[in-house]
C-alpha cells in the first residue's frame, strides 16, 4: 500500500572508483543511498559485514568474521574459496568515530596498509572514501605485483578478483 517515495526504483547504479593517489596510496570512492549512520553500521557490525564482504559473485565465502569495532579492538576475517585454502585478514581498529571515520591496521605483514574509511553524508546520501596507505612505494608496488600482497592479505582480494573476472568474462576485454 504505502509505496514510499524513498524506495524509488533503483536509480542509476552508483559507481565505484579506484585511484592511485600517490606512490603509497590507493583511494576507493563510492556513494550510497542512505544516511551515514546506516552505512557506518554496516561496516561496524560483524553480522552486517558478513553479508557484503565476500560477495557471492566472486565465489568467496566468509568462514568467520570477528570485528570488535572500538579503538584498540581487533578484527579477523577468514575467507574461503573452493579452490584454495582459507586466508585470514586481521588487524586493529585505531580510530573509531561513529558515523564518520574508521581507521584500522592490516597486520598480516609488516608491509600492510593502514586503511581509513570516511563517511560523509549529504542530502541523505553517503559518500564513502577508503584510503589504503602503505608504508612505502615498494609495499604498494608489491601488492600490485601480487607478491608481497600474498602475505598482506591482499592475496584473497587477488583471488577474488581473478575469480570475479572469470565470472564477468564479458567485461574483461575492456580492461
Amino acid at each position, binding site marked *: 500500500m504505502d509505496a514510499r517515495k524513498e*524506495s524509488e526504483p533503483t536509480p542509476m547504479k552508483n559507481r565505484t572508483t579506484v585511484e592511485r593517489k600517490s606512490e603509497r596510496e590507493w583511494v*576507493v570512492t563510492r556513494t*550510497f543511498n542512505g544516511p551515514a549512520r546506516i552505512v557506518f553500521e554496516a561496516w561496524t557490525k560483524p553480522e*552486517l559485514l558478513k553479508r557484503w564482504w565476500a560477495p557471492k559473485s*566472486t565465489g568467496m565465502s566468509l568462514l568467520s568474521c570477528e570485528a570488535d569495532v572500538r579503538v584498540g579492538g581487533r578484527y579477523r576475517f577468514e575467507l574461503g574459496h573452493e579452490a584454495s585454502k582459507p586466508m585470514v585478514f586481521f588487524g586493529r581498529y585505531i580510530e573509531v568515530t561513529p558515523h564518520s571515520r574508521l581507521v584500522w591496521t592490516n597486520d598480516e605483514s609488516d608491509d600492510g596498509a593502514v586503511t581509513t574509511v570516511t563517511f560523509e553524508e549529504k542530502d541523505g546520501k553517503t559518500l564513502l572514501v577508503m584510503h589504503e596507505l602503505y608504508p612505502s612505494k615498494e609495499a604498494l608496488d*608489491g601488492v600490485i605485483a*601480487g*607478491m608481497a600482497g600474498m602475505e598482506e592479505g591482499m592475496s584473497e582480494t587477488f583471488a577474488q578478483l*581473478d575469480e*570475479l573476472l572469470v565470472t564477468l568474462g564479458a567485461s574483461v576485454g575492456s580492461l
Partner: protein
Amino acid sequence: MVQYVPTGFDASFSALSDATRRGVLEQLGRADASITDLAEKFHMTLTGMKKHVGVLEQAGLVTTEKVGRVRTCKLGLRRLEEEAAWIERYRQLWGARFDELDKVVEELKQKEKVDGRKKRE
C-alpha cells in the same frame, strides 16, 4: 591497452593458490634467485622447485633465464599494464562488495522506518 583473457587469470589464480609459490614470488620480489637458491630456502628438492617455478612461469608471473648452468628466476610482471589491470580488478571487487552493501543499506533504511513507525504508534 592489452587484453587480458580469463584463461590467464585462471592460470594465475591456480598459480597463486599455493603457499610455496606465493613465498617464491615474495622472495623474488626482494631479489632474483636461482632455482637452487629457492629450493634451499623452501627446503625442497630441485625437482619440486622446478615444478613450482614452471607453474609460475606459465602464469606469466615469473621469467627464467639460463646462464651457464644456473637458471635464474625473476618476477615476470609487466608493471604498468599490471597496475592498470590491478586497478580495474580492484574496482570490480569493491564494486561487487558495494553492490551487496547497497542491499544491506536499503534493508536497514526500511527497518528504521518500520521501527520508527512502531515507536510512534
